[in-house]
């Protein structure tokens, strides 16, 4: 299990490197387009640590080399309910790829995280964002971000 820490906010993320490998494989399958989805996990240590258990690909989406849009439809909502009730897993954030680029967040990404944090029904104020920058040859880098009071900050 690997860890990254956001010193400024005192927040930590635990994750398995295999998750990154799996997402890289998914990224390459969708090359040259972006792809993404949801991060599921648990909170621990008085909510100071988020543990990533799995990352899933959104089922209802539109993508291009510079954009990834997902729709949280009826099936997706039921998926979150099932994961919560049966496996005790929460939605804790989002992931997506940047083909032929790096893992720096864009202004669109910033707006997207704000949308989650400010959404009354999503019920989560500090969603995590994982971005994987990659090329046809493989992974370039990946970064974890979190939003806190309309400001994005990076882990590690």
């Amino acid at each position, binding site marked *: 299990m690997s860890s990254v820490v956001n010193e400024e906010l005192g927040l930590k993320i635990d994750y398995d490197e295999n998750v990154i490998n799996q997402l890289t494989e998914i990224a390459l399958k969708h090359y040259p387009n972006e792809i993404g989805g949801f991060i599921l996990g648990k909170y621990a240590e008085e909510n100071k640590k988020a543990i990533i258990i799995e990352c899933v690909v959104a089922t209802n989406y539109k993508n291009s080399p510079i954009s990834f849009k997902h729709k949280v439809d009826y099936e997706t909502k039921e998926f979150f309910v099932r994961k919560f009730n049966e496996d005790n897993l929460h939605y804790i954030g*989002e992931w997506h790829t940047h083909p032929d680029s790096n893992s720096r967040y864009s202004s669109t990404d910033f707006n997207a995280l704000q949308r989650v944090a400010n959404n009354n029904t999503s019920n989560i104020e500090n969603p995590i964002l994982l971005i994987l920058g990659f090329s046809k040859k493989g992974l370039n880098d990946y970064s974890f971000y979190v939003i806190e009071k309309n400001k994005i900050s990076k882990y590690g």
Partner: protein
Amino acid sequence: MSFKKSDYLSSVLETHRMTHIESLVDKFKIKRTEIKEKLEQNYEDKIYSPFNSGSWKKHTAINSKFDLDIVVPFKRNSFSTITDMFDDLYDFLKEEYRGVAEVRPQKVSVGIRFYTDDDGDIVEIDVVPGRELSKDDYPETSRLNLNINTYDGNYIQTNIEAQIENIKGKSDARQIIRLLKIWKQQKSRDVKSFFMELIVIKAFDNKLITGNLWNKLKTVLEYISDEITRENFTLKDPGNSNNDIADTLGWYQKQSLKNDFDYILSDVDKKDENLKKHFKENENFKEEEDKSGSGGYRVGDTSKAIIPPSNHFG
């Protein structure tokens, strides 16, 4: 610190979540799989695939009282009468689990209550047999005739899959259903869970129910209190609109439920903390809940799934 009704209700729900008893649930699931396999081996082509139903399937289960349900769809020609079907299933399960479980006929199901295991746990599974209405009809319509054990040997036609479908996607209603199931279990009220489920969904269909968890519960209680004793009040079974589930409660039971809910509303109106008298946290899991203190990642109501909005990344 002031008492927050919604935070308290969230804690009631949280301490009643099934995930607190995962190892016990695993035992239930193992038994459920075993029973399904035995049924398929015994009945072979007399049945379609048994499927899961009940509160677990509907995500309205609470950890203080639950069982798992299996529905067994029998083919039309498997038995000449629905009573024969029910009796054969009962005889089979009774023989199969002789010495390891108590098997008893219930209103629409055969209940299997396994004897206490080494951990002191008791596994309970209900098996609901149903027969398709006419030959080859079930794969098309999912309709079944269920046996009802009454003196006049009645049966009821319904569609259990439609009943499960009816509650899908209604996560706000599910929270209130779970609260009312907790209430009825703590107060030993004799109201069918299916009745609670339908009346809450009807409240959500007919009223604008918004705000925090307490606001939602309050609006539902008010709706039930206003409507339940009306002469023309009905609760249609989503599996068959000819079945009126409101009829499963007599006039006296409906009036009692109205009185109960009126009392909760007036009592909480007097003092917020009176809510604790009516909905109790599950003490067995309260300590665990208290550990998740403030600070760190901020998540609002942890008693239900977090549903993010549709989104756009670049």
